Structures are given as C-alpha cells and as structure tokens.
C-alpha cells in the first residue's frame, strides 16, 4: 500500500464516521456547534496519532493476550495529556466538551485503529493512518456541525448568517436533530457512492473495540441459544 493511499483512505473511502460508522457518540454530541466540533476533532486526532505511533512501536513488546488492556492504558495516558493541555490553554473548550473530553478514551475509532492497523503496520504507516483518520473524523464533524449550527442557530462558529439567523430551526442543535442529520448524511453517502462503499449493514466485529473480549462473530449472533450450541 503506498503512503498516499494510507493517508487519504481515512478521509473518503474509509471515512470513520460516515462509512465505518465508528465514534458515533462524540459525533452526535459535539456537532452542535462548529467550535466544539473542531475542538473535539483536534483532540481526537492528537490522541489518535500519538496512540497509533506508540502502539506501533510497542507492538512487538505487548503480549498478544493482554493487548487490549495495554492499548487502553496507552490511549488513556494520551487522553489525560490532552485533557491537561486543553484545561490549561483552552478552558472554554474544556467547558464546551465537558464529559466528552475524557470519553475520547472509549472512542471506538482509536481502539479500532490500534487493533486493526497500528498493531500490524510500521510506525510511519500508523502515523499516516492516524492523521488520515483524524482528518476524516474532523471534517465529518465539521460538516455535521455546519449543517446543525447554520440551520439550528443561524450562525457559523458564532458568526451570524444572513436570512438563516432570522429563522432558526432550533431542533437541529438538539438531540433529535443530531440523529436525523447523521442519518441523512449516511444516506447521501450511500446514494453518491451508489452502494459501492463498504456499507455496514450490521454492527460486526471488524471495528468493534470489544471484539477481543467478546469473540462472537457479530452483534447479530448474540443469540444465547447459539452460544450454548457453540459451547457444546
């Protein structure tokens, strides 16, 4: 795989939010405004790049059996670092992101990339993958936040937009608007790629951070009867 495609695949072809459907919680929660979306995107990208590099360096040292707890420690350390930096230099952003800043640690994108990419590839590739996925995440958040803030509040990063400012549709900035805009964007992506994009029909294990604990084929296989059959 050449370096450029490693970098760019996260932005469009394997966009973490719209195609892989990862990191849904922070996407929905922080896309209410452009400023908080950019802050969340930047914080997540920073953690993603650092953890990808660290895990790629440590991949030969980390024993396979305890790899997930090890990844979690690495990721949590970087999240703590980012938290401290944000608290010190951007207290307003810290208030805006609130609980979602420490929750970067359980963002599926980061653990997913560690498990799927960084643990199998070289340091440079992992860093590029982190940058690409981070940009893809940030751009999607920015797009969603632009739609939600422009229609919901009539502003863009606090700057009033003519016409829209007089007719804000405040449901866009509230919880239901988040679900609806996200659903519409995914539908548009499916339409534009005419179904060619790797569409996630069900929530399979490929990107699920809990897959290593769980060991089931897909969330659809959570059937207890099946499990008993397998155990026998």
């Amino acid at each position, binding site marked *: 795989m050449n370096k450029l495609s490693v970098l760019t695949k996260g932005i469009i072809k394997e966009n973490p939010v719209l195609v892989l459907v990862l990191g849904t919680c922070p996407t929905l929660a922080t896309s209410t405004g452009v400023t908080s979306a950019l802050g969340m995107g930047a914080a997540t990208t920073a953690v993603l790049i650092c953890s990808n590099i660290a895990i790629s360096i440590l991949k030969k040292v980390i024993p396979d059996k305890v790899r997930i707890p090890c990844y979690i420690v690495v990721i949590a350390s970087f999240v703590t670092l980012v938290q401290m930096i944000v608290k010190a230099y951007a207290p307003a952003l810290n208030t805006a992101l609130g*609980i979602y800043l420490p929750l970067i640690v359980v963002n599926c994108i980061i653990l997913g990339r560690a498990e799927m990419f960084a643990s199998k590839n070289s340091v440079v590739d992992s860093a590029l993958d982190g940058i690409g996925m981070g940009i893809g995440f940030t751009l999607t958040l920015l797009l969603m936040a632009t739609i939600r803030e422009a229609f919901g509040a009539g502003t863009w990063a606090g700057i009033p937009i003519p016409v829209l400012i007089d007719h804000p549709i405040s449901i866009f900035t509230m919880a239901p608007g988040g679900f609806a805009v996200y659903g519409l964007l995914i539908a548009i992506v499916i339409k534009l790629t005419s179904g060619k994009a790797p569409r996630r029909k069900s929530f399979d294990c490929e990107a699920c951070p809990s897959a290593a604990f769980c060991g089931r084929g897909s969330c659809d296989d959570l059937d207890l009867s099946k499990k008993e059959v397998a155990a026998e």
Partner: protein
Amino acid sequence: MITIKGLIAILLTATFINNYVLQQFLGICPFLGVSKKLDQATGMSIAVIFVMMIATLVTWPIQTFLLTPNGLGYMQTIVFILVIAALVQLVEMVLKRYIPALHASLGVYLPLITTNCAVLGVCINNIDSEFTFAQAMFNAFGSGLGFLIAMLMFAGIRQHIEDCDPPESFKGLPITLISAGIVSISFFGFAGIVDNLFG
C-alpha cells in the same frame, strides 16, 4: 441534606430528562447494535444497569478516598477505565463460578460493555456533579434504567422498521438513526416534570 425526595429527583432526572442514549448520546453503539430483538435488548440493558451500579460502587470511593486526597485527580481517566475493565472481567468470572444461571443470561453482554462510554460516563458524571455516595448510586441506577427504557422502546419500533420499505439509500442504518431521532423527540415531553413534581 440528603432526602428521599432529592434521591428520587436524581433518579427521575437521570432516567427521563438526561436520558443517556437519547439526550446525551452515550452508549449509542449498543443502542444501535443490539436493539434488533427484544430479548437481547433486555439482556443488554440489565447488564448495563448492573455494570453501572458496580462501577459506581467502586469508582466513587476510589476518587473520593484515594485520588482526591492525594492530589491525583488528573489520573481519573486512566484509573477509572482500568478499574472498570478489570471489574467487569472479575464479575464475569465470579458469576460463572458461583451463579451460573445468572451468567448464562447476562454473561454474553458483560464483556461488550467494558469499553462502553455510558458506563465510564456515569462514573465521571457522578464525580463532576459532586454527588454523595447515595446520590451517585441513585444516579447510576437511574441512568441504567433510562438506557433500559430507551432500548425497549426502540427494539419495539425497530421490529416495525424491518417490515417497512424505505428508499434504497435509507435502508439499514440511516432509517434507524432517523427513527432514533423521532424517539428522542418523545423524551422532550419529560422536560420540566421533575421541577414540577419536586420543585
């Protein structure tokens, strides 16, 4: 002053007004992933309530008696996620050994919620809101109950979505998300209910 009234207010607020899934967007992955069948949705939600309660039971004392007095508040994220992960594994082992019946019905779901943002979210929320231990436990139970209600409602709605024939591009996830948005609107109906009841 902790009163029963205050505790019930916290419980109702966590369940209906600040519903974790539909208002705060925590735990969306299991909400979308495991809400296809009613029995699975129920099992998953009960496991979430269970883990939220034991996670609060352990993390609240750790923060209050260990981290804060020693000036280690910044270690919260690392400590909490590790404690929760270890705890879930431990509980699974204990259940398997001593209460196999319970393990058979909840065991599948336990590992799935180790890295669930709703569980870590409720622990951090308890600390950020400066709850006392009793308040924290009620908040954890209420949040889990809210998750259960959202899951059950949505599992019922999803069975109807399966029978519908939406436009090709909307099939699968998009229509599910838009339905979730509509369900979320219904929870606006609860806004103000606690203030009116207990205010």
